[in-house]
């Protein structure tokens, strides 16, 4: 005898208990601490902070632990937490020219004030598995030098001084906040940059890559890529001046792109911009390419129908928390709708068979 399925609540509780057990894994292996994740999986932590839109390495590390290393799940945990936090105010714009850089490279100039600083990069490593790590070998100490006190001015500022790059004057507009207002399209560049910096790294990477392969065209030079700590300052109304409230690590990428100009307007290079929490250079570079690609209208370029030129397409599909939720919701029960389709298809089939029989 058929009995309607009951007991969803007990099934859910049991499933979650099993999940917790699976997360912990083999009890014979030491438990991973949040501090270990924060310190040793820092690039994963950075990605979770960037796409979770919350700069807190401890919470990001906790989310990664809770999510069993599923970074999109961890990003979702951070987002759901972040949305409950009160807004105390907005900081002053961070001054990335004053960044304490750990890495700073330019692909457009061989040498420049502040120098080329490789920093802790995977670049030029040979991608050979290091079996010493499996044997728990400790690393040797890297060589150190006294910190250079030299200023590290932006490459773009140097190009700007000569008028070689489009000017980007400081604006006083308060940028829209896509976490507090529904996204309305077409959006401003500030809104697009917000959406892209918290967008899925894989999606933004592929969009950027597609422009390099000819779907749209960004012929970008990395004018400058810099990673380091910047001070966050906030105006305190009672004080009447800005005070430093903390420090965050950022990756900034500025690309120099094909020039525009005419007989009357002197040609100038154009900009693409990327700024992402933490050491996240793949994302920052990709972001600057996608930013540049989406600026086609403003720069008087042709729309070629390329996905990376299509603001609505990019902005509506960049968010992995939205994407994964909607994608995975199709595993929820749909039997009411499926039933209505079953009835429809059965009826249509019956009509076709009836017509065939009548014809015979």
């Amino acid at each position, binding site marked *: *005898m058929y009995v*309607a399925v009951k007991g969803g*609540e007990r099934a859910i509780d049991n499933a979650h208990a099993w999940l917790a057990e699976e997360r912990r894994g083999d009890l014979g292996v030491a438990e991973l601490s949040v501090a270990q994740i924060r310190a040793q999986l820092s690039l994963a932590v950075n990605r979770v902070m960037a796409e979770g839109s919350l700069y807190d390495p401890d919470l990001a590390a906790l989310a990664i632990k809770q999510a069993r290393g599923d970074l999109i799940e961890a990003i979702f945990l951070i987002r759901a937490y972040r949305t*409950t936090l009160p807004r105390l105010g907005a900081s002053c714009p961070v001054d990335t020219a004053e960044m304490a850089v750990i890495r700073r490279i330019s692909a457009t100039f061989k040498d420049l004030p502040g120098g080329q600083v490789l920093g802790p990069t995977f670049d030029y490593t040979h991608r050979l598995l290091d079996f010493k790590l499996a044997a728990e070998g400790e690393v040797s100490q890297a060589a150190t030098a006294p910190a250079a006190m030299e200023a590290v001015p932006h490459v773009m500022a140097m190009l700007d001084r000569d008028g070689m790059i489009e000017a980007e004057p400081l604006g006083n507009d308060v940028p829209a906040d896509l976490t507090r207002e*529904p996204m309305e399209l077409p959006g401003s560049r500030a809104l697009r940059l917000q959406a892209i910096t918290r967008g899925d790294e894989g999606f933004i990477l592929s969009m950027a890559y597609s422009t390099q392969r000819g779907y749209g065209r960004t012929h970008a030079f990395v004018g400058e890529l810099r990673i380091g700590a910047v001070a966050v300052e906030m105006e305190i109304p009672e004080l009447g001046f800005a005070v430093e409230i903390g420090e965050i690590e950022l990756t900034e990428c500025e690309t120099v792109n094909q020039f525009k100009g005419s007989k009357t307007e002197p040609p100038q290079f154009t900009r693409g911009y990327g700024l992402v929490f933490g050491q996240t250079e793949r994302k920052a570079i990709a972001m600057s390419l996608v930013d540049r690609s989406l600026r086609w209208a403003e720069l008087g370029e042709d729309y070629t129908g390329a996905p990376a030129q299509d603001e609505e397409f990019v902005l509506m599909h960049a968010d992995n928390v939205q994407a994964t*939720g909607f994608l995975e*919701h199709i595993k929820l029960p749909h039997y009411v709708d499926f039933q209505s389709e*079953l*009835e429809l298809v059965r009826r249509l089939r019956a009509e076709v068979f009836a017509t065939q029989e009548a014809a015979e």
Partner: protein
Amino acid sequence: MTDQAYNFAYLDEQTKRMIRRAILKGVAVPGYQVPFASREMPMPYGWGTGGVQVTAACLTPDDTLKVIDQGADDTTNAVSIRKFFQRTAGVAVTEATAEATLIQTRHRIPEAALTTGQILVYQVPIPEPLRFLEPRETETRKMHELEEYGLIHVKLYEDIARHGTIATSYAYPVKVEGRYVMDPSPIPKFDNPKLSNSPALQLFGAGREQRIYALPPFTHVVSLDFDDHPFEPSKAPHDCDLCGAGESYLDEVIIDDLGGRMFVCSDTDFCRTRCEAGHLGALGVPVLKGGA
């Protein structure tokens, strides 16, 4: 963090206020999709975050909440959402449609007629009825503004040309008070007639798509059709095998691997109430009132 660290019904009051303003605008312009600043919720987008936000903004401590998914109170996601509000709002919950002051639903309208004062909150995946005809939001908003609904009629006509009938069986588009074409969420078209002139307030929440829309009580709602191909609500041509109901929407349950199947009410509260009242379907067993 303890549950006490969250506000009543999870959302903070400012957010609720923002959502209530969107709801009021929706009520004032029936069928119009009001953009709202949807929040990330502690359940995934696509799993009812729009409905949950609308419910959270409407709930008061005196409310009695019912949550259904596919018409049933005991489907996993319904259980999960009900538990969320029990935990964050501590409101009374019920499975009885008549006892509920607020019902959150996915994919069904309860069989029992709703009454004045009740609120029915729908979870909506894609609020835009024109979305699969025109993927761009910038375009579809313009089409609504200009009441440019030719495309959807062409789609329905093409169905008839190809299949001899309108081949949309759920999320069947409706026109509200002669103005906005609206997606009723993926309810089977069997439920469409219940949208119109309902004494209850019907609210629709789409979290991921950041839209809220509404049908105030006694709003006139018409399912799109043609004079020579009138709208027909449809259901499986059977009676419920448990309670014998002939007028309720049915789920098909496969009971063996030899093609055996039975049909049962999708609305579990409706079915149980009938069984308890002594109605018996072909495969039902008599239920003792108050029994398991």
